[in-house]
């Protein structure tokens, strides 16, 4: 497919702006020296180009999308309508509070609902993604220890099954990362944890349900061990969809949480963002929260700053339109719909797991939460067919592959998260497909490496891409 630059013809374009209706003065600044090589296209070319690109992009509505850890649920249409209103879209972030009461009410409501769902006392909407929330939450922990003169707490404990963002966030926040092993069932190794905590422990980062899709039953003991050592507990909300309304991080002993609005709260992921990663905390950390706090004074909502705030983690208050969508979703679901959604996600995952587990060995064969992890280690050894091969074969059957090779503690892992919005029929079809793909792989392992066969592009050479990176169009040496 042609790049947009390869369709450009000098002099083409559409007039979007009127003539300048005021006098222009001579430049009094240093001007651009090199030509600006943006594409020159008529609008129909722009439209067709992106229509072609859209056809080679797989969205949630294109079919089953069981990408583990990503919660690819249906994004309700109303959410887009709500966010597209001029009364939200065309509001300047620095206009007076009195002229932005609706925006501030959206933020205050979203914060309150998220605080209740997570069992926290205060929430900031400022972080723009999950990893951004992790970084923010860890800075709260750092500020808390510093404020108490407890600067020796330099270590963050992270289970070896954690998302890669956890240790990376801890490092960015200036902490040393201590990896805690998992036990044979994928849970935190309690003995190892208890041996690791001490006067240098700043905190623990944990996902629960964990990244193998299991709820760690020792959670209260885990968080207690960290608290007793003087550390704080950070909850990575990536997997909140499994338990919202059922059990709350705040009641498990966590002090700080982030949630992913683009996972649990049905806001679309946009091909990689924008997301939103609000951070909640217990009362004793409230004063450190970044960004703005919203307070009501004389019947008017006003923007304030917390007294000991860590600063800002982005320019303005939030990825606001994402918050609008998440609030809309929470209002639709309400107090009974939220646990019903969680239970629906867990049921769908267990059902699909039961439909395939005789052919696909489970990494941990027990009741799962919202997702399950299969290991294709045996298949790989016996036939040479890898998790990657099977994932690619699923593409030919209209299924977006599960998450591959994660978590790192499971070899040849495929992580499947159906979400609650899939009807039983889709799960049945998916199970049949998973089974057929496995049988085909066993019968004709040599063909498995060729998949997918139905897409224009198949098996891009990633090694070549990384060895000599070409990461922009070269105008001086056109390609085709």
């Amino acid at each position: 497919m042609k790049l947009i630059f390869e369709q450009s013809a000098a002099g083409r374009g559409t007039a979007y702006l009127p003539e300048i209706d005021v006098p222009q003065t001579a430049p009094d600044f240093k001007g651009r020296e090199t030509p600006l090589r943006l594409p020159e296209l008529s609008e129909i070319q722009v439209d067709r180009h992106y229509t072609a690109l859209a056809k080679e992009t797989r969205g949630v509505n294109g079919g089953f999308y069981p990408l583990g850890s990503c919660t690819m649920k249906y994004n309700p249409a109303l959410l887009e309508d709500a966010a597209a209103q001029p009364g939200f879209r065309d509001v300047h972030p620095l206009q007076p509070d009195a002229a932005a009461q609706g925006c501030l009410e959206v933020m205050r409501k979203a914060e309150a609902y998220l605080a209740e769902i997570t069992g926290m006392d205060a929430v900031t909407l400022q972080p723009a993604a999950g990893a951004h929330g992790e970084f923010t939450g860890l800075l709260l922990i750092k500020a808390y220890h510093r404020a108490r003169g407890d600067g020796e707490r330099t270590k963050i404990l992270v289970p070896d099954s954690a998302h890669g963002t956890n240790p990376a966030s801890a490092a960015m926040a200036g902490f040393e990362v201590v990896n805690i092993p998992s036990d044979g069932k994928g849970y935190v190794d309690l003995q190892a944890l208890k041996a690791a905590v001490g006067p240098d422990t700043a905190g623990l980062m944990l996902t629960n349900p964990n990244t193998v899709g299991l709820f760690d039953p020792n959670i209260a003991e885990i968080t207690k061990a960290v608290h007793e050592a003087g550390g704080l507990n950070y909850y990575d909300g990536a997997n909140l969809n499994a338990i919202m309304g059922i059990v709350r991080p705040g009641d498990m002993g966590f002090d700080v949480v982030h949630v992913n609005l683009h996972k649990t709260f049905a806001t679309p992921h946009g091909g990689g963002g924008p997301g939103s990663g609000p951070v909640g905390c217990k009362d004793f950390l409230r004063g450190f929260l970044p960004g703005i706090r919203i307070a009501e004074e004389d019947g008017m909502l006003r923007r304030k700053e917390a007294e000991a705030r860590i600063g800002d983690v982005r320019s303005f208050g939030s990825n606001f339109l994402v918050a609008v969508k998440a609030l809309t979703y929470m209002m639709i679901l309400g107090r009974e719909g939220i646990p019903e959604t969680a239970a629906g996600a867990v049921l769908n995952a267990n059902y699909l797991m039961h439909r395939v587990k005789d052919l696909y060995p489970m990494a941990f064969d027990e009741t799962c939460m919202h997702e399950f992890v299969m290991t294709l280690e045996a298949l790989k050894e016996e036939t040479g067919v890898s998790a990657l091969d099977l994932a690619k074969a699923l593409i030919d059957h209209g299924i977006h592959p599960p998450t591959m090779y994660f978590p790192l503690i499971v070899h040849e892992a495929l992580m499947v998260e159906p979400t609650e919005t899939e009807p039983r029929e889709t799960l049945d079809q998916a199970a049949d497909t998973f089974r057929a793909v496995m049988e085909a792989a066993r019968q004709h392992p040599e063909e498995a490496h060729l998949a997918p066969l139905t897409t224009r592009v198949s098996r891009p050479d990633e090694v070549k891409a990384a060895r000599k990176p070409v990461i922009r169009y070269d105008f001086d040496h056109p390609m085709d």
Partner: protein
Amino acid sequence: MGTYVPNTEADRKNMLKACGMERMEDLYAGIPEELKRKEPLRIPEGKSEMEVRRLMEGLARKNRVYGTVFRGAGAYRHYIPSIVGEVVGKEEFRTAYTPYQAEISQGVLQSIFEFQTDICELTGMAAANASVYDGATAAAEACGMCLEKKRRKILVSAAVDPKVLSVVRTYAFGRDAEVTVVPEREGVTDLEALKSLADGETACLLLQTPNYYGCFEDADAAAEAAHGAGAKLIMSCNPIALAIMKTPGETGADIAVGEGQPLGLPLSFGGPYLGFMAADEKMTRKLPGRIVGQTEDRKGERCFVLTMQAREQHIRREKAGSNICSNEALCALTAGVYLAAMGPEGLRKAALSCRAKAHYLKDRLEEAGLKAVYAQPFFHEFVTAAPDEQAAERILKALEARDILGGLPLGGGRMLWCATEMNTREEMDRAAETVREVLDA
């Protein structure tokens, strides 16, 4: 009512049975009872779509959308061609995840490759990433790229947007780096002070041009001062101004960053916005976040993949340069469509129009009795002084009454004004007239 769970009571029963369970509660048998929530969440009951739509419409109505806006300060109202919304609204782009599976993500991948090229063209740099959260986080991440064991000091010009400075400080708190503010003189960075502050412990200088007050900085001199001390230069630029101004690449900057919101993104009360980052050849592998690269598939077909992933958190974990995972891909697509529609001439026209209108507005406001605070060359923002704080408040109030959002109050009667191609001559005359009435009263 009102969830998006399709399975009926009968479905659920059958599905539970297939799993060897009887009741929905059995799914959660592994969670200790004492931790489970016994009461319903204290949030309202679920509602129908119609009810929620009305509630959200009610909230939107509580905001004011001004007919005329003369406020920028990091968020700018520009014309957005209709084609932008049409493209960006496509379900595939809107709902896809990060393009991990290249075979069914060529559209997103190619759009990011094109965006990276756009950003390289705008900034004059060698390489760009797929975006970060916003302009402020782009600046903060860029400072992080420059930190070395012996260079822990980050210099930030006092004329940088204070919100950006705040974010740089927050990130520096995390990385245990030191932030030193280089004072400003007459609306631009004090170059003499810069020369005395830049030393062997300086990692970088963050310079914004046009700066927070709208003034163009002497970036060449700043580059010389930073490089003279062995430090890196990070230039933060308005992407529309880049159509006409000397680029970071031409200035010899090591990293270019900026807020991409002016490129087709609505004001949205502050987000989602778009941070762009570009680097010279030597700094390319330190760029954080996703990068899309070109390669070939097994049939030799040109295609695109996420590449250089050995830098990233999911591979390097605590050794990664940044933790960023989700970025602002749909906003990057928005910018790509905007730039493709506008083209080089359209963007240049937008930039010239912004500059011309801001100069016109400044002249009119001066005639009306406000005083321009700085005498520097400027792009589309400038600062005025009213006799006192109360006068500035009265002006803003009078403008509000005429459906005009005036300049941002900076304290002490100073206001930061912005004009873009959206502002007509008539609007600016009307604003100036209002100012005159207030000051003459």
